[in-house]
């Protein structure tokens, strides 16, 4: 399997509420709630780290699961988010969007 890179879409709103990540799609206002594992993947989706690295580094050691099994579930999860337009997927690293600045224009 080739590497899968993931980045959060710009067209979402998100906030951690009481320990759970709430995400709303600006495209269709659908609201999602991610569980603990989903939140870990979401927060690590920086466009530069592959899904395999995220699972290997942040999930397997913490939850004592096999990499292959965890990766399969994680991939299904991110593909579902991608279908709703709230996660971007690519086999190449994804450049992050320019950050808004507090400096005067």
């Amino acid at each position, binding site marked *: 399997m080739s590497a899968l890179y993931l980045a959060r879409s*710009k*067209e*979402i*709103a*998100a*906030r*951690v*509420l*009481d320990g*759970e990540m*709430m995400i*709303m799609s*600006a495209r269709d*206002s659908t*609201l*999602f*709630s991610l569980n603990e594992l989903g939140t870990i993947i979401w927060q690590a989706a920086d466009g530069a780290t592959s899904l395999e690295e995220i699972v290997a580094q942040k999930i397997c050691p913490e939850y004592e699961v096999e990499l292959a099994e965890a990766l399969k579930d994680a991939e299904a999860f991110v593909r579902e988010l991608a279908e709703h337009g709230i996660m971007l997927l690519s086999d190449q690293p994804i450049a992050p969007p320019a*950050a*808004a600045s*507090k400096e*005067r*224009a």
Partner: protein
Amino acid sequence: MSALMEEMNERALKAGVPLSVQLDVTYRCNERCVHCYLDHDDHGEMTVAEIMDVLDQLAEAGVFFLCFSGGEVLMRMDFFRILEYARSLLFCVKVKTNAFMIREKEADRLRELGVQSVQVSVYSHRPEVHDAITKLPGSLKRSLAGMRLLRERGMKTIIANVLMRSNLNDYAGVKALAKELGAEYTIDPTITPKMDGDHSILPLGIGDEDLRQVFRNGDLVGNVEEFCAPPPTVNDDVLDGLPCSAGHTACYISPYGDVYPCVQFPLPTGNVRKQKFLAIWRHSPQMNEVRSIHARDLPVCSTCTHVGSCTRCPGLAYMEGNMRGPSSQDCEKSFARTGLLSANMLLKNASRAQSTLVQVAGVRQPQDAPLSQVIDAAPPAQPSEESVTRL
């Protein structure tokens, strides 16, 4: 409301998180709507740096839904910098605007920045009626043009139709406009007093019979039978209920940094120029007082048959003089829906009848009608026009 949204609200309430905030970035406006509750001078708006700092604090506090309103937001030349920064903090942003100043460039930016929805007030499909309310010639044409640009970019738009005497007959036309524009349509028959307590604009609102007709129009309220259903039985669950989200999961911040429980509830609780937002939200005595009030703590409303279904606004009650008191406009709405007088109305009628008796008895002459006829002539147990339009 979706089940997940309900769950989100419940969790925010339990955790004391201000899920929704309305931030008015300016009170300046290019329109002068006859019913507006604001003055439009700049008394020292927060700078863009101050607003960005407030946005950081709101994100930290857990705010998810952020509504930018005014005044007219686009009167601020730096509005898009504020908006861009807010979106970088991942707020779900709604913008209220009259859309007069939305051209291609502004529509593109709103779309690019992922604004969730744009709400525009439209009072009539007829320019002569709409423009007479906004006092800005050409405003309907420009507002609709702005909305079309947003719609062409696939943005969610909402038409808010405030109903007044002067535009009451035009709601069908506005609703048809909304359909043509692919916009959601909402009506609001409530005219609120000005923020400074001035009640002089309230007579612009529609009367009780018109309100009754509106509430029986399925095109406006959906299922009339359900909307106008008798109030539910009053029980402990109802009496333990909270009036609304103001101060519980929502609040309002003025362009000057004043924090209130709601835009319609001008109870000062603190100012973000002097204190941190979370300190105000969590520790303001006024905010905590608002939070402490349950339906059973309302001296009149807790005895009212409508308490389980009334839309009682604590802010309007506050502007009537007592945040634990009734909101007369909501009493009128409950009556218009169900035909049942509220406890507040019954008290007012009793008081009016009593004062009539005292007055007549005081000047009664032997040739006057017998007292029994005076009692019969007392005002009927119906809300008067006066009680609809004056708080």
